[in-house]
């Protein structure tokens, strides 16, 4: 490696921190514009949905096990099971299914 690893890390950390902190510190007022407010209200749901599917299917070793884990997590979440339980049960299902695959 001809470059310095710590300089690499500094560059990464600085860029990533600025991305995170700039909006937080620059937008101090409550936004009144209805369209912008609505946009920001929908952002989390869309972002998390985009990141979850189909990425969950390739997260573990077996796509079938992950797919079943996904469906079970969907059902549990629909029934308002706590985050911790949804998370743990989907892991357990994937673990057990993969033992048999």
């Amino acid at each position, binding site marked *: *490696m001809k*470059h310095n*690893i*710590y300089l*690499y*890390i500094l*560059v*990464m950390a*600085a*860029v*990533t*921190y600025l*991305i*995170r*902190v*700039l*909006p*937080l*510190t620059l937008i*101090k007022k409550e936004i009144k514009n*209805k369209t912008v*407010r*609505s*946009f*920001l*209200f*929908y*952002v*989390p*749901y*869309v*972002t998390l*949905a*985009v*990141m*979850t*599917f*189909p*990425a*969950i299917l390739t*997260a*573990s*070793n*077996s796509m079938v096990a992950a797919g079943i*884990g996904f469906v079970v*997590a*969907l059902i*549990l*979440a*629909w029934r308002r*099971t706590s985050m911790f339980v*949804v*998370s*743990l049960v*989907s*892991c357990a299902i*994937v*673990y057990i299914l*993969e*033992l048999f695959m």
Partner: protein
Amino acid sequence: MSGAENINRKNYCDGMRDAIPIALGYLAVAFTLGIAARNAGVHALPATIMSLTNTTSAGEFAAITAIAGGVGYAELALMQLVINLRYMLMSCALTQKLDPKFSIIHRFFIGFGVTDEIFGISVARKGKLNPCYMYGAMSIAIPAWTIGTCLGVVLGNVLPGGVVSALSVALYGMFLAIIIPPARDNKVIRGLVIIAMAASFLFTKIPVIKNISSGMKVIILTVVISGVAAVLFPLPDEEKEEEEANHEA
């Protein structure tokens, strides 16, 4: 002992509690990150420092590969900008959620904690967001991410593969627990979640488009889908009663 202090402590504890599934998922994902770092020739100390100071899975995975290939500093900066730009959207959304009672100093600190997962649980809080909630979550999640990375480099393949594989779905289970209950209650959100997942799936299949990085994909789809939804289904007007509060200057 003031009431505000009690509320802050309560928020901190809630944050720690809600971050336990995040920490579990982070341990697993960071462990695989550590293995990737080890394979790329990055040692334990720099890998650990990288995770402590960045806390971004996709960004770090991409960086490790790039660093192993001797990428330039500017190129690395640009890469991180593109992959992590989604945090900017999240931070924008958080500005509208934060309790205005807290000073701007707090915003510099919570800025460290805007990850996909901590953002997810923070926006899911009822009412205004107390920064102490995020501090609580960060105090559990960031050490888990950092320690997981370190263990991955040092221990390599000691942990059974099945355990690492299964824990990798933890974060996604958590995301579902965040978005599905509101989707059940609100038709618009339900439609958006379905469209977002379908579009995300298509993005992995359509030629050319499937080459777009995952970070960029998140940005494009979030902006387009949320933007269209904001125009078609604007939120009802807020009550005027909140207007007069919080002008202490």
